[in-house]
């Protein structure tokens, strides 16, 4: 069996990189005494994966991890023990057991939802320009790939973008093949509005998968 769990990465630790968060989770699992499983071979490593790496500087509200288990444990017990072994800035919000046949969460991610808090001074102008920005037929920006920086059209990768509270709500494509990072959205949006890049706070609120009917829904519910 495997455990699929969601966790928060709070503001205070938002600068900690993906690999460091992964290692912190591994150590927490070790501390918790949860029977995590290890790979076989010369250099065994814990079978723990995150569905998606979160950018340095971003807050995560429902990040997804899965860990293979070498023994039995109930989700409630799993949460209680792991939360006790984690710092307050990094806590689980849900957990459930999944079968070994359940696909890897990493391969299920199709998109992500974000809340982007805009600096006070920029908000009005960005909100005004939002619909015109979305009406563009293409939005070209630079994308870093293994073979260098390439131009890329992110318009089809923006599934949803609207005003929400003190900033924006965004639903953006996130797959191995094509994805739109919030930074790409913001770079083009700010340039479109004729503003200098502002310091926005990015909160990833959910990772999404696609259900049988083709709807994008939170991955942990699939």
């Amino acid at each position, binding site marked *: 069996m495997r455990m699929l769990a969601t966790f928060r990465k*709070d*503001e*205070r*630790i938002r*600068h*900690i*990189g993906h690999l*460091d*968060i992964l*290692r*912190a989770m*591994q*150590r*927490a*699992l*070790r*501390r918790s*005494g949860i029977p995590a499983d*290890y790979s076989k071979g010369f250099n*065994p490593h814990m079978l723990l994966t995150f569905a998606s790496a979160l950018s340095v*500087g971003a807050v995560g509200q429902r990040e997804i991890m899965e860990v293979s288990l070498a023994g039995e444990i109930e989700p409630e017990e799993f949460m209680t023990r792991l939360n006790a*072994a*984690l*710092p*307050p*800035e990094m806590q689980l919000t849900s957990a459930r057991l999944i079968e070994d046949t359940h696909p890897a969460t990493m391969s299920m991610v199709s998109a992500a939802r974000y809340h982007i808090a805009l600096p006070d001074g920029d908000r009005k102008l960005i909100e005004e320009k939002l619909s015109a920005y979305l009406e563009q037929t293409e939005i070209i920006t630079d994308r870093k790939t293994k073979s260098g920086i390439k131009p890329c059209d992110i318009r089809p990768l923006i599934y949803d973008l609207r005003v929400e509270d003190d900033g924006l709500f965004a639903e953006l494509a996130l797959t191995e093949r094509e994805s739109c990072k919030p930074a790409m959205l913001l770079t083009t949006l700010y340039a479109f509005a004729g503003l200098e890049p502002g*310091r926005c706070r990015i909160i990833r609120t959910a990772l999404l998968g696609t259900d049988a009917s083709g709807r994008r829904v939170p991955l942990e519910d699939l």
Partner: protein
Amino acid sequence: MADYRLMNERIEAMLEQVQKAPRYTGGEMNAIRKPWDSVRLHYGFCFPDTYEVGMSHLGMKILYGLVNQEPDQLCERFFMPWLDMKELMEKEHVPLFSMESRMPLCDFDMIGFTLQYEMSYSNIIAMLRLGNVTELASERGRDEPIVVAGGPCAFNPEPLADFIDAFMIGDGEEVTLEVTAAVRDWKPSGEPRETLFKKLAGIHGVYVPSLYDVRYADDGTVTEIVPNCPEAPASVPRCVVTDLDGAYYPRSFPVPYTEVVFDRIMLEIMRGCTRGCRFCQAGMIYRPVRERSLETLRSLAMDLERATGYEEISLSSLSSGDYTCLPELIRALMRDMSKERVSISLPSLRIDSVLKESLEETQKAKKTSLTFAPEAGTQRLRDVINKGVTEADLIEKVTDAFMGGWSSVKLYFMIGLPTETYEDLDGIVDLAQKVVRCYFSVPKDKRAKGLRVTVSASSFVPKPVTPFQWEPQDTQETLKAKQAYLKEKFRGVKGVNFNYHTPELSYLEACFSRGDRRIGSVLRAAADLGCILDGWSDVFSFERWMKAFEIAGLDPEWYAYRRREKDERLPWEIIDSGIDRRFLWHEYEKALQEKTTRDCRQGCNGCGLNRWKGVCAIADAGHISQG
């Protein structure tokens, strides 16, 4: 509180702009967070270097846990920010803040610096300035923090006397809580700082420099350091934890998110060393040797593993190979930890330790590079420094290591040791070559691939409380010539990588390690000129330091290159380290005669600890001989 929120917002904004923000974020697992108003004493523990260096330091972990165990006290951590962060903090008027509650340094009741190496001194002044604490002890206001310091460099406290209110000398486990309690009780009393200082001066192991006057002779040497009030003792004895097994040791450490220099559980298996190497200050100031019991160590290791989740434990001490039942300890730990997949590493291996069996045990877990420290290239010079190992020892241990599957070996040497000649330098090259040959003499199918021999040559710095405390340091020109000579010699040696340190740093270390109170003005001038983070070669500026000496009107050569007279009053002799100066002088004379002194486990050599009953079992046995 409104101010606090504002500051927190500013800090968060700054973190968006700096390199390596995780150095400043805090929020690590096992960091201890107490409500600020829930305690009566706030202690800021300052490590005068970056987070990555400071978080690798064992002493901080011990004292952090110790103070936080007290229900009415809290201890939070401070580190030296990197240049970009420092600049932003100055620009935004954000004072140096703690890792836990982000409170400014100046709001703490007491702040303590750990003095691990001389080249961190500039960071102390920088941290005081950044933290809005008046840097001169004599000018601090009533309610400013009490500034204390401890650690190995506190054995010569004089260079920092202008900045530090009180030094704690020796083992910190007991004296720290006596001092925090005194500060806690004094703080609400309304009494002036001097009242507290006089009280502190009465605590065993505490040196309050403002309670002493220094007199100098015409030639600049110190003639005496005398108390200026009856409360101050004429000589300050160091603190010794006699029962290390019963002493406090944390069962939990904060675990950094990012990798730091030593990112593992550190298990201090013993303190002190019986070898008596004559260049080694640690070997003198941590006497006598004290061991933790096997059972205590197993229990600590288990708890620390459960509390941290670390994948590696390192056994730490000055000479772990000397631990009485090392193979048993390693076997027991391996057994205890096998389920947790923890590997065990042994740093600072001494080449004459009985380690063959231990080596085989450790390799089951992990193969890292092995370090050997012959220190000198010839037997003659090893006798001078009393490094009681022979070439045969080294070759035997290295062969064992190669047979055991290691292929990476580090060899540590010092250059500029007293009486050194070019023959001794040739000896370094010769020894390295023998190690290489040793590797090739192991059958191909029995040795690991990829031989890597690293020869590291540091420059000798004469240290206080050692038999070489009277010796001049080699001049920079001499050291540079010796380095160039070795570099040339190693050019033709395959499989050996030779590296060395810049002699400028060692020169300044020599000035500070045996400096007097006047060095304080050099440190201030250097801080004004922007000297900071001197341990980092990309920041260190030798020119600025030379300028600082010039401004202070002091001659660095006088401190580094001068041979001290036998009867000269040495500035650090205000501290009674427990080691008799007559013993040190006798050892110095023996060094020059190339005579060795036995390991104290073979019998007492009369270092002076016998004056303190109940401290050293060997000395108490009264078997004193001058060998």
